[in-house]
């Protein structure tokens, strides 16, 4: 049981720079439910307007290494940086290897940097709810840049992406031609496109493809912003300043156009939706568990059974009160 005093104490300590307290607070948020929803609300009401940056792209494109390089530049400019990295949960064992952190370990002891790994575990938006709740914590505690890194596949990750202020799509040489890039999906959503590993052969070809896609297509999320394409190499440290510059320019654009507020609003709307989903799923699971354990042998009339469970869940929800 997580008591209110315990959490408030954690938040206060975390605000004073106690990283252990922040680590524990994030654990509560990773697992947020109707009992702890108030924590997210409390933190959200103390938002300091952090710049939320979503970084997505195929596995192995070098997202984590790029972030690590970018952190150095951002720190040089005096920003406090938080990173939430999301790694897949095994569908077989439900275990996970969280390996993104490895690329950023040089920043582990920097008091202005906080890195937290989460998995895609959890049902129906569970992941997004964890990540969104953690964003609120970092925002309230004064982190200027909150970077969320995902492999960019699967709906729940797209949900997180869609509520970032700035979406960065990372690709690399040899990752397919312009037709690949024209396909619907992750390449539609970028505010900034990065061709990482540009020290490799064929980098300029991939760059041309991306340029074509970014310039000719009706890519991006509307508005006056034209998504830039940037060549980087984390190995050589090439293009990192340009990348950070693009992040800054996009933030300026968001603020100037009033879009920053719109994106914050859609982030909060998503929080409400995911929390509702979580409340329903939790109630459903409790009831389903009890009902299903009664079933024996060859189960018949399962649609009727499903409706029964759904109705019972509805009744339970009707009686739910805010604590």
């Amino acid at each position, binding site marked *: 049981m997580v008591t209110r005093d315990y959490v408030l104490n954690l938040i206060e300590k975390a605000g004073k720079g106690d990283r252990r307290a922040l680590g524990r607070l994030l654990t509560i948020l990773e697992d947020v439910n109707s009992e702890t929803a108030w924590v997210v609300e409390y933190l959200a009401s103390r938002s300091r307007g952090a710049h939320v940056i979503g970084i997505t792209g195929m596995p192995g494109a070098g997202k984590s290494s790029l972030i690590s390089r970018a952190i150095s530049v951002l720190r040089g400019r005096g920003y406090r940086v938080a990173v939430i990295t999301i790694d897949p949960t*095994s569908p077989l*064992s439900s275990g996970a290897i969280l390996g993104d952190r490895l690329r950023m*370990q040089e920043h*582990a002891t920097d008091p202005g940097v906080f890195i937290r790994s989460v998995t895609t575990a959890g049902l129906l938006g569970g992941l997004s709810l964890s990540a969104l709740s953690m964003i609120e914590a970092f925002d309230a505690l004064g982190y200027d840049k909150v970077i969320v890194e995902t492999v960019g596949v699967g709906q729940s990750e797209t949900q997180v992406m869609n509520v970032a202020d700035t979406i960065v799509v990372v690709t690399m040489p040899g990752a397919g031609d312009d037709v690949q890039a024209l396909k619907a999906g992750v390449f539609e959503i970028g505010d900034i496109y990065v061709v990482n590993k540009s020290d490799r052969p064929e980098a300029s070809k991939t760059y041309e493809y991306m340029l074509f896609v970014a310039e000719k297509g009706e890519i991006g999320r509307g508005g006056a912003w034209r998504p830039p394409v940037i060549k980087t190499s984390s190995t050589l440290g090439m293009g990192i300043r340009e990348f950070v510059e693009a992040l800054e320019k996009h933030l300026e654009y968001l603020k100037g156009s009033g879009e920053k507020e719109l994106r914050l609003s859609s982030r909060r709307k998503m929080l409400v939706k995911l929390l509702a989903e979580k409340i329903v799923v939790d109630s459903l699971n409790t009831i389903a568990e009890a009902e299903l354990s009664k079933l024996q042998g060859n189960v018949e009339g399962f649609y009727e059974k499903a409706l029964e469970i759904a109705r019972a869940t509805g009744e339970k929800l009707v009686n739910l009160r805010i604590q």
Partner: protein
Amino acid sequence: MSMELTLSRPTTRRKVKVLVAKIGLDGHDRGAKVIARALRDAGFEVVYTGLRQTVDQVVAAAIQEDVDIIGVNQHEGSHVYIARKLLEKLREYGADDIPVVMGGSIPVVDLDVLKNIGVREVFLPGTPINEIVDKLLRIAEERRSRREV
């Protein structure tokens, strides 16, 4: 049976989170990776921090990730020195409630030395992976029952 288990698992049940670390100049990471994969297959969330970490980096990672257990793998003979440093640092940061376990090329004669320093469990060469999994699960469960979250 396993089907019913899956259905009845509450959505809020948190996985055991373990940090697998290699500290210092030791470059032999095959063992650490085998352990990391075995723990993943047993349903753990494994944070792997890679080779040549400092004690400070490992403690910082453990705190930020709020792990249940720190597992250190050493193959070059410095395990006693490293264990002493690591537990010292954990105390310094008020994080000495995180249990530390060790494995790798550790001779039997050092077993008591390590335990006296405060290492919770030492897995000598040849320890079956199932045994490691079981012990880690027990350590994590016991700790969680004492902790508020």
